[in-house]
């Protein structure tokens, strides 16, 4: 039915974008609240995800390592374990194991002491080369997302620009990491996975199709919760009171969407230009003299306007039990906390890692921040 609706829509409004970028509005109205977040402890090199351990410490994946952060403000840092490839998503199981997503290797289960106690490197005969996130259901079932069959997690920008047919998977496996099933296939870079508060659904956030989908755990019913975000969704976690928190690692721009359509130019750009300087979302927006400029990004009297087209951006959203955004925290173009990939609820506090700006931050509590933004 919606297909017919789309066809009619195309006929009546031939110039309308099918998947147009929604305006940041409503619950997504821009504010500066993410910039009010407090940095906890020292800088962390490219933190990707975080998980709260049974010992009350925070485990953060950073590059090839997992760091254990303990103490009042998680300021005491110690190396927990190290791999030979970058580590991404993290989750603790009920029985005290840490499941880590390791690039090109799959899921690795670690004991509380950091020893490898289990491994899952393929599902249905195909390697899990691009594990991006992992979540554990109350019954012990482990859900993981495999971003793409073509690229490893750190090759995310080329994966976006190559404009491939979606090839990501949602993988379900038993608590022993022995039997893996493919619960859903052909996902466009699934980057976040969470088991719903009710425990009957798994929610998956896909970055390249900018949507949030719920898959029922029993059976293969799927339901699209939000079909079009203005940002690229990253990880999603359960919060208090039937809520969820969702991180977006960047926001879409008209220019990026345009370049994605311009295949010839896009291929030439990928072939001849170094990746730091491509048109496309970046995590850090770190200073580079030679980055592509857009008219709206020209500084006026030395000031970068916050509403300029974003090369990098910081965005987190709190979703209600239906998956609709209830509020959002922004770090706009001139802000400092960009490229947030992971978020975690620790008691009454909400913590997030900014991969772009190398830090762990505590979000301002709703009472202290101004809701008006």
């Amino acid at each position, binding site marked *: 039915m919606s297909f017919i609706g789309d066809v009619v829509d195309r006929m009546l409004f031939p110039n309308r974008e099918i998947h147009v970028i929604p305006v940041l509005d409503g619950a997504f109205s821009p504010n500066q609240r993410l910039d009010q977040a407090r940095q906890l402890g020292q800088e962390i090199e490219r933190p990707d995800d975080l998980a709260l351990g049974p010992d009350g410490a925070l485990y953060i994946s950073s590059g090839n390592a997992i760091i254990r952060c303990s103490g009042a403000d998680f300021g005491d840092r110690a190396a927990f374990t190290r791999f030979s490839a970058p580590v991404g998503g993290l989750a603790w199981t009920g029985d005290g194991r840490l499941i880590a997503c390791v690039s090109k290797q799959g899921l690795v289960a670690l004991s509380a002491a950091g020893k490898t106690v289990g491994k899952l490197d393929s599902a249905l005969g195909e390697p899990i080369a691009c594990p991006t996130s992992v979540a554990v259901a109350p019954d012990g079932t482990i859900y993981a997302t495999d971003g793409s069959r073509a690229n490893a997690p750190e090759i995310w920008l080329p994966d976006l620009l190559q404009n491939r047919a979606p090839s990501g998977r949602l993988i379900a496996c038993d608590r022993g990491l022995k039997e893996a099933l493919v619960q859903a296939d052909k996902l466009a870079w699934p980057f976040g996975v969470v088991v719903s508060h009710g425990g009957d659904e798994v929610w998956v956030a896909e970055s390249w199709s900018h949507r949030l989908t719920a898959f029922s755990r029993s059976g293969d019913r799927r339901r699209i919760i939000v079909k079009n975000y203005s940002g690229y969704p990253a990880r999603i976690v359960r919060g208090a009171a039937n809520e969820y928190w969702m991180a977006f690692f960047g926001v879409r*721009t*008209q*220019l990026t969407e*345009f370049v994605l359509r*311009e295949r*010839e*130019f896009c291929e*030439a*750009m990928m072939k*001849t*230009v*170094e990746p730091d*300087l*491509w*048109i496309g979302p970046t995590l850090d927006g770190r*200073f580079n*003299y*030679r*980055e*592509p*400029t*857009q*008219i*709206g*990004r*020209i*500084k*006026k*009297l*030395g000031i970068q306007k916050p509403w*300029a*087209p974003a090369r990098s951006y910081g965005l987190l959203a709190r979703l209600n039990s239906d998956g609709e955004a209830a509020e959002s925290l922004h770090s706009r173009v001139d802000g400092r906390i960009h490229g947030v990939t992971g978020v975690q609820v620790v008691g009454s506090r909400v913590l997030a890692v900014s991969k772009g700006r190398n830090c762990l931050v505590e979000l301002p509590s709703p009472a202290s921040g101004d809701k008006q933004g």
Partner: protein
Amino acid sequence: MKSLQRFWHRNSPQLFLGELLEKRWMEPIIPFTLTIAVLLVSALMIPHYTSLGNLQQLMRSFAEQGMVAIAMAFSVLSGGIDLSVGSVFAMSNFLAVYFYLILGLPLPVMIFAVIVFGALMGAINGGMIAYGKTRPFLTTLVVLIILRGAYNKATAAFTEELASINSDSSVWDFMGSGFVFGIPTNMAVLIVVAVATHFYLTRVRPGVHIMAVGSSRKAARHAGVNVKRALFSAYVISGAITALAGIFYAARQNSSGTDTGVGWEINALAAVVLGGISLAGGRGTIARAMMGAAIIFMLISGLVQTGFSGNLTTAIIGIILLVAVGFNVKWVKNKGKVLQKVYVVPSWVDFQPPPSIARHGGTVFAENDRLKNAQPIALNQIEGPEDIILDRRDNLYTVNRNGSIIRFLAPDYCVREEFARIGGRPLGLAFDRDQNLLVCIAGMGVYGIKADRTIFKVTDRTTRTRTRLKDDSRLYLADDLDVAPDGKIYFSEATTRYELADWALDGFEGRGNGRLICHDPKSGVTKTVLKNLTFPNGVCIAHDGKSVLWASTWLCRVYRYWIAGEKAGTNELLIDNLPGYCDNINRSSDGKYWLAFCGLRSPVYDLAMANPSFRIRMVKQIPPDEWLCPGINYGCVIKFDDNGVVSESLWDPGGLSHPTITSVREHKGYLFIGGLENNRIGRIKLANADPAWEAHKSYWGAS
């Protein structure tokens, strides 16, 4: 194949289209085309339509309708409407016949009296509308009804006299059926009236006031226009012209029938609207009213001649009107949008990969910290010091974006004073031999300021390019200048297609839109020296005074144009493929030249510059704020010599205090740094510079 594509993109017909659409006279293109179309169709369908006799006949019947349309146009342009024209016309017709043929008044007296009558009717309309503040529609409708009633009464009372009219006056006959140079008399008068009213509305103060009131009553009042008087005059003129039409109609018909002037106000209104005159007032011309009237007239007469019945004719006209007006409304409303979509025409520019600017890249352009600790001058006291210059007493002059020239007094540059306020957006600065400060002003031209602060105009126009639709004689974006030893002023005009606010768009386009211009103060002549240059920016007379160095911003090149010696008049490339976008060039104390980079090249942008069709689609598909543009957020300073060899570069890492650098000046061992979008001027001490060197001495000697 590729060269053909290059040629196509560099000379795209879209350029012509864009500049065509920009023309004011393109607004009535729809009624104009329709007029021609109706004329052609009639000529094809009706035999002998274009014969001299038929044309004369057509013109004779048309003239009075044209005059009434002009009368209507006056009231509509003033923001109102005059429905009474039909009955004023009829009454004037009757009065002309009555005064002249029945009462036997002398002809001039009769003409005067009838015109006074028309003006009086207009005065009643205008008086009530302007001073009584009544609604134009109702007021003129009431006058229409009353006059029509009076007319019917009068014609009924004089039926017998009117039936037995016999004129033997040759002047009267000449008015009715004579010719002036083959043109019917009344048509000749219409032409005179149309030209006169056109001039009145566009060139004469009271007429311009009518247009102003029509455009915006409030703004007109704020501008000091006597709104009531302007409105009043519009209706008086409308009435007088209608009366004139009535006189000629009387001379032609020698009678006054019951249906004279019935429905003419509708025809006139239709003509005005069809011509594209806005019913909201203030927008439109007399020529448009004439076009509209001609279309209506030709349609009616054409349809009648081809044998359509009267009712059908009216219906057809109604439909055509509806379509045309609808189309015209859309056109007038969307012309701006169309223009926006077609005006930016990206060209093809091929770039080679530039030298590395990486800190450890090993090139002369390698990033360093030499500007990092630049001492800020005038921090937050200045907005956009595009250029800076120092005088013989070490005072610092700079430009501000509000259109003023600001002076900071030596030695510590803490005292700020407004040296002169000229307006526009001042850019490049230079001192001439007599220490007059010359300044290029975007949007205005080149101006000078004497030491006593009097401002004088140097030049604001140059030779016009005859082959171009756009009038480029006025200076659009004078950017930087320098003075040659013989006193001639050489200056660059960066682009003739964009305002300064849109300078990045010119970069996006990447076409040769700019010029190098020379002004000779002795003869007062301004001449374009080189044209079709791609954003010529910095201009500097070489140390030997024999050539002008000029920088092409978007091509990242420096050129040398010889003004003396055996190569005089030739232009040669001095430095190619720089890693940044060049801005101002100035002399340095060691016989070399400082060059500011207002931006740095980005490989993605270079790639896009060689792909105009990609950029054309970008213009069409995404909003301007999202378009790629040259990377003008970061810059640096380099130094080069007369052979085009770059010897050093100075960087502010991260562009924290000096993001875009548009100008650098050396003065007594210091380097001063300015930026188009900066809030300060920077100053650093130069290690190996001559501490006594100043630019003025270098140009004009020690005296």
